[in-house]
């Protein structure tokens, strides 16, 4: 995974002489102490982390945590008071005015919380703005802008004005406008928090869809834990200007760095974060289709289970065989292949617990988890699903007897 953005010791301080507070930050004084001593507000406090190419990196925090300040450092709408930000190896904090203009025009585009649309321009004129200021010929920029208007599903609205569109549509315009510049990096400052929940949900899915197709690096700001964990490949949690923890949603839920984060993620809907692969158990008993029934019975006896999955030579799932069927089969001298039941529920590794719950309730056998090649990688018992929703560490939930 290549690193696209390196944030190194970035601090942003607001006040009359921001630089003067930097030594205090370096000494490790808290935000309150610095405010008291120097009357300067620390927006971002010595942040260091990397952002990988093509990932959705979410910066999460409550209002006043410095997340909007931090995101504005990436395109220098806020110039960091101290520290460096390397964008593909180039330190943008040391850019000249022209270099910065180039970076903004070609590498990085931003979507705003309240859309930041130009109300005096039509949708088309809004979307082509980025190209217009780069002096791209009219025909060409029209064409690119129209493509992007289509991408966000606003075809037919290009001659309307922003105030004639609903909030959700306006934010689509914001997104199209950002995409038109074909940036490597997309900055999104709470883009969906001004929208109502249904539209927000829809936009999140659409964003992931666009991300899948275009493979942009997305830096996404939100105060909503559920949103952060739903769309983020990795999440940074901020508090009072500090970046408290950076990690994948699973890592953060599994081992929160401190009490604040535990508190923060208390309300998270775990069923929408944890996937089958996180709660499944690796199969310790397996029967290959070429093995006989005796092997199957032995496996089940040894492991104390009442049914066992049957796979082919390359571990592709064939079905399940129960102990009763197997014993009956031995008596009647049937081959294993005749006794395989195929009425099992198969799920993929990526399925969320949320989607597994109904399946686990309906199925009379454990859920079989397969990977992309249809190979069996694990199984999930009903009790796994439930413990996955509550336990602090899901891997510890082994106290079942099947």
């Amino acid at each position: 995974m290549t690193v696209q953005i390196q944030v190194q010791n970035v601090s942003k301080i607001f006040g009359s002489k921001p630089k003067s507070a930097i030594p205090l930050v370096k000494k490790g004084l808290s935000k309150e102490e610095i405010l008291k001593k120097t009357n300067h507000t620390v927006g971002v406090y010595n942040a260091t982390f990397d952002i990988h190419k093509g990932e959705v990196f979410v910066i999460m925090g409550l209002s006043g945590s410095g997340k909007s300040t931090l995101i504005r450092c990436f395109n220098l709408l806020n110039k960091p008071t101290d520290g460096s930000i390397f964008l593909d190896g180039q330190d943008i904090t040391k850019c000249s005015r022209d270099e910065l203009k180039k970076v903004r025009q070609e590498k990085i585009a931003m979507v705003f919380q309240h859309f930041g649309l130009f109300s005096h321009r039509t949708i088309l004129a809004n979307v082509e703005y980025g190209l217009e200021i780069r002096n791209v010929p009219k025909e060409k920029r029209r064409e690119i802008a129209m493509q992007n208007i289509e991408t966000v599903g606003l075809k037919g609205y290009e001659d309307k004005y922003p105030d004639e569109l609903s909030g959700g549509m306006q934010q689509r315009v914001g997104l199209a406008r950002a995409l038109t510049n074909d940036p490597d990096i997309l900055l999104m400052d709470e883009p969906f928090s001004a929208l109502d929940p249904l539209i927000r949900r829809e936009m999140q899915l659409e964003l992931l869809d666009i991300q899948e197709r275009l493979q942009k690096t997305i830096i996404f700001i939100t105060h909503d834990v559920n949103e952060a964990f739903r769309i983020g490949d990795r999440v940074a949690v901020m508090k009072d200007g500090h970046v408290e923890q950076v990690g994948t949603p699973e890592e953060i839920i599994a081992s929160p760095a401190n009490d604040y984060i535990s508190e923060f993620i208390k309300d998270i809907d775990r069923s929408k974060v944890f996937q089958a692969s996180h709660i499944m158990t690796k199969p310790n008993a397996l029967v290959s289709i070429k093995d006989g029934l005796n092997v199957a019975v032995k496996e089940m006896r040894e492991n104390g289970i009442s049914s066992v999955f049957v796979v082919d030579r390359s571990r592709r799932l064939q079905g399940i065989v129960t102990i009763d069927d197997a014993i009956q089969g031995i008596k009647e001298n049937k081959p294993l292949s005749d006794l395989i039941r195929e009425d099992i529920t198969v799920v993929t590794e990526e399925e969320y617990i949320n989607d597994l719950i109904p399946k686990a309730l309906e199925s009379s056998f454990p859920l079989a988890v397969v990977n992309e090649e249809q190979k069996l990688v694990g199984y999930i018992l009903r009790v796994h699903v439930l413990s996955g929703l509550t336990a602090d560490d899901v891997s510890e939930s082994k106290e079942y007897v099947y």
Partner: protein
Amino acid sequence: MLMISFPDISFEAGKYIDDFVSFLADNLSALFDFIFFITSRSINGLTDFLMIIPWWLFIIIIFLLGWYFKSLFSGVLYGIFIFLIGTFGLWEEMMITISIILTAVIICLIIGIPLGVAMAFNKWVSMILRPILDAMQTMPSFVYLIPAIFFFGLGNVSAIFATLIYSLPPVIRLTDLAIRGVDKEVVESAHSFGSSRWQTLSKVQLPQALPTIMAGVNQTTMMALAMVVIASMVGASGLGEQVLVSINRIDIALGFEAGISIVFLAIIIDRITNGIAEKVQRRGGNQ
């Protein structure tokens, strides 16, 4: 010894100003002549142009403007107003007044909008201009009529000069206010795409600020109109001159006719510029 009366210390500030004005008049006469030439030419040209327009066509134009920017009723009303001014025998005077006001307003915009923008962008400019603007608005107008005569002699140009000083502040102030009032995120989004300063100003900030700037234009126009009588004291012709004449002759009839004509003009100009402001409001950024 009680210190009752003010001590015998004198600082003749006025004298220095007097010297300064004389100095300017003596040394920069070429510049003032140039300004005089340009301004008087524009006023005369404008008056001549307005006078070529047949009276009925002019009434129709006013009617259409009123209709488009306000309502059908307003259009008819404004047409009647103009017709009435004609019946008072003040048609030519009205045209002169309109051209003086138009010239003054155009000069105000040419000077005022860039100054307003400069104020919005630079706090030093703002700090320096603010008290000057206050002085321009509160200084009794008669005071600067005198240097106006010094520079430009009696006539319409001096009138324009005096009108400018009085009516320039609103457009400067409101342009400043309008530019600073443009939604922060909208300006940020312009920056985030790598706009240059000029691009941000011309493509985003000015268009977004237009409704408020138009309110300033309306104010400036009204203040210019308010100056027509005072401006007549330095020789401006037009409706204001008629008011002065009526005062000298104690001619109530003429005074009323000229006075009500000014009121009519004020109503028409205010409503139409207001209508323009409202039309641009719809797409503007800060309402």
